[in-house]
């Protein structure tokens, strides 16, 4: 009778345990499902090619907001949704400009037991600089040359935030564009000053271009760098060129000056060390130390236990047991230590930016801006070289200045699944962000 009751109790207990575990899963699952459904609803009201970007942006919240807004803004520019792109980059730059002090997730990222990627994404200096670059291009498109200059100057400033003095202020493109915006704003003094800075940074490139051309065509070429990790525990962040060999040329009968004016891979890789690298190194050392101590203790435990078996000494056996327990504890500690560097990156960035300078014809007509992009064959993947024509996403004239911008690579879709959700310590800010998104992108429509 007692045996039967015991079995019944065990069964009830097992069912309760299983139910409680399933209940936990269901609760978390339904929370994610609700959020994902809201993200799908939000994205449904947006222009078709950008919906995947909107969905991810809404669902991931502040954790990845800067990255997702940059990707959205960039894709919107490529697809001709310029007002939408402006709003996206404004929201991203607001966060990049904000000082993150006493941020709870930044604090967690420094913990030995939490990964760096738990922090909100702000990007490395080259990524921040490129967000300003695109916003500057959008101001140029509007003919707001002063704010365009402000953006290019900010881009240069962010790129100069490298730890290594030798690599500071080497982004001549931003100074050249700021100078061009100044000339277009009829501020020749400021234009010359900024032009001198461009010459000082990369004289060979910018001396090849006229000082203040009336037509400037800017083209993004190829695919920019990726982030990866090195080190035993992935604690070292490294930048990996993804250059696919794409080059840009003017059509045969064109004689305009065309130069590669910026190398984004170079900008990424000359960043120098990061302050957080010291923290990640510390985490890696801690993990290594804990693993080593665990290994030593387990070996000692085995030896002690063997000795206890031979001698039959109870005290020695207990000591071996304690050492085994300590080894397990240290092993656990090592396993939950997370020194890996954050490798989230802006994957739609170009490898290079080309500039073409020309003059507006005397009859005032708009010159046709078109290029030919060529990608070399890739062994085992692409047998022959590929060529395709590149036309600008926009070409506008304001006063005596005409600017065009285009890209060799089309809109890259965002097919990240499953979407990562990071609500912890962000629920209030995420609620505000989602409200902000619903307001800012309420009536996104083609321009």
């Amino acid at each position, binding site marked *: 009778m007692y045996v039967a009751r015991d079995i019944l*109790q065990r069964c009830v*207990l097992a069912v*309760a*345990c299983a139910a*409680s*575990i399933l*209940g*936990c899963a269901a*609760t978390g699952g339904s929370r994610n499902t609700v959020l994902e459904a809201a993200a799908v609803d939000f994205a449904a009201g947006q222009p078709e090619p950008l919906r995947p970007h909107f969905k991810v942006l809404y669902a991931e919240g502040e954790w990845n907001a800067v990255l997702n807004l940059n990707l959205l803004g960039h894709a919107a520019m490529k697809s001709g949704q310029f007002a939408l792109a402006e709003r996206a980059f404004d929201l991203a730059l607001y966060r990049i*400009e*904000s*000082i*993150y*002090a*006493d*941020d709870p997730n*930044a*604090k967690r*990222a*420094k913990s030995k037991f939490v990964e*760096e990627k738990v*922090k909100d994404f*702000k990007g490395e200096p080259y990524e921040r600089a490129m967000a300003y670059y695109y*916003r500057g291009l959008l*101001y140029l498109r509007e003919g707001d040359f*002063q*704010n365009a*200059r*402000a*953006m290019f*100057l*900010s881009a240069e*400033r962010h790129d*100069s*935030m*490298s*730890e290594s*003095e030798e690599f500071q202020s080497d982004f001549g493109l931003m100074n050249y564009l700021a100078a061009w915006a100044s000339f277009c*704003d009829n*501020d020749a003094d*400021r234009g010359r000053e900024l032009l001198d800075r461009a010459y000082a940074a990369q004289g060979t490139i910018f001396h090849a271009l006229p000082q203040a051309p009336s037509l400037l065509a800017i083209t993004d070429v190829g695919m920019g760098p990726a982030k990866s990790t090195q080190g035993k525990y992935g604690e070292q962040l490294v930048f990996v060129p993804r250059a696919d060999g794409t080059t840009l040329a003017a059509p045969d009968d064109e004689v305009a000056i065309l130069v590669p004016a910026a190398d984004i891979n170079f900008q990424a890789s000359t960043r120098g060390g*990061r*302050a*957080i690298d010291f*923290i990640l190194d510390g985490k890696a050392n801690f993990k290594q130390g804990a693993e080593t101590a665990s290994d030593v203790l387990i070996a000692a435990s085995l030896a002690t236990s063997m000795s206890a078996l031979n001698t039959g000494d109870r005290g020695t056996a207990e000591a071996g047991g304690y050492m085994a327990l300590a080894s397990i504890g240290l092993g656990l500690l090592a396993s939950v230590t997370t020194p890996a560097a954050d490798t989230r990156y802006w994957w739609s960035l170009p490898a290079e930016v080309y500039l073409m300078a020309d003059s507006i014809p005397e009859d005032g007509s708009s010159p046709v801006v078109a290029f030919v992009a060529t990608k070399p064959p890739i062994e085992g993947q692409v047998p022959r070289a590929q060529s395709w024509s590149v036309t600008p996403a926009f070409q506008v004239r304001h006063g005596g200045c005409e600017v065009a911008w285009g890209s060799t690579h089309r809109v890259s879709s965002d097919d990240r699944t499953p979407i990562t959700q990071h*609500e*912890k*310590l962000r*629920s*209030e800010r995420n*609620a*505000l962000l989602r*409200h902000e998104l619903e307001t800012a992108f309420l009536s996104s429509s083609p321009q």
Partner: protein
Amino acid sequence: MYRVCAFLAVLMSGCVSPQVQNSGGMAVRDIDPGIRGPVGGVGIEGQDIISMTDQMMRDILGNSFFSGNAVAPRVIIDGEFFVNDSGQAINKNMITERLRANLNRASNGRMLFVGRNYARMVEEERSLKREGVTDVGTTGLTRAQAGVDYRLGGRITSLDSRDTRTGMIQRHTQILFEMVDVENGLIIWSGLYEFARAGADDVVYR
């Protein structure tokens, strides 16, 4: 059995949702625009615009060029010649329009403000009156739109510096306001507003 219950309790405690702050969202709230908000960087912010325009307004009203005349001077205050040469994108109209609106209210007729940005609208109405499509209104006709005596100019500039060792970034921002006699080019009034602001991102962002 007690042990089993305790185990079950521990297991069940895992089901308790993590502490979610403000899970119901956050109702819209008003923030005093004259004080620094909960978020911000080192550049020009809303409270700076309020502070600088208030200061310039008081200074202009206290200047005899503008308020001590038998005939009220005519002034244009807009962003046309107010240059943003700083490292921060800004809508200059936020500054010039607030200055104009507050000056217009506070001067109470001692200064007259010409809306040159409305020139096309005014021209259309003038044409309608003169073509007889509308009557002449109640204030009569003038030979031309109003000319002005003074116009606002100025420049926003900034200087950024950074300590790579501590991650501290600092921006000195200077906003110059000038009133120019548009007949002879004399600068009859200048006002300067400047501030420096510094901050450091968490080390994980440096």
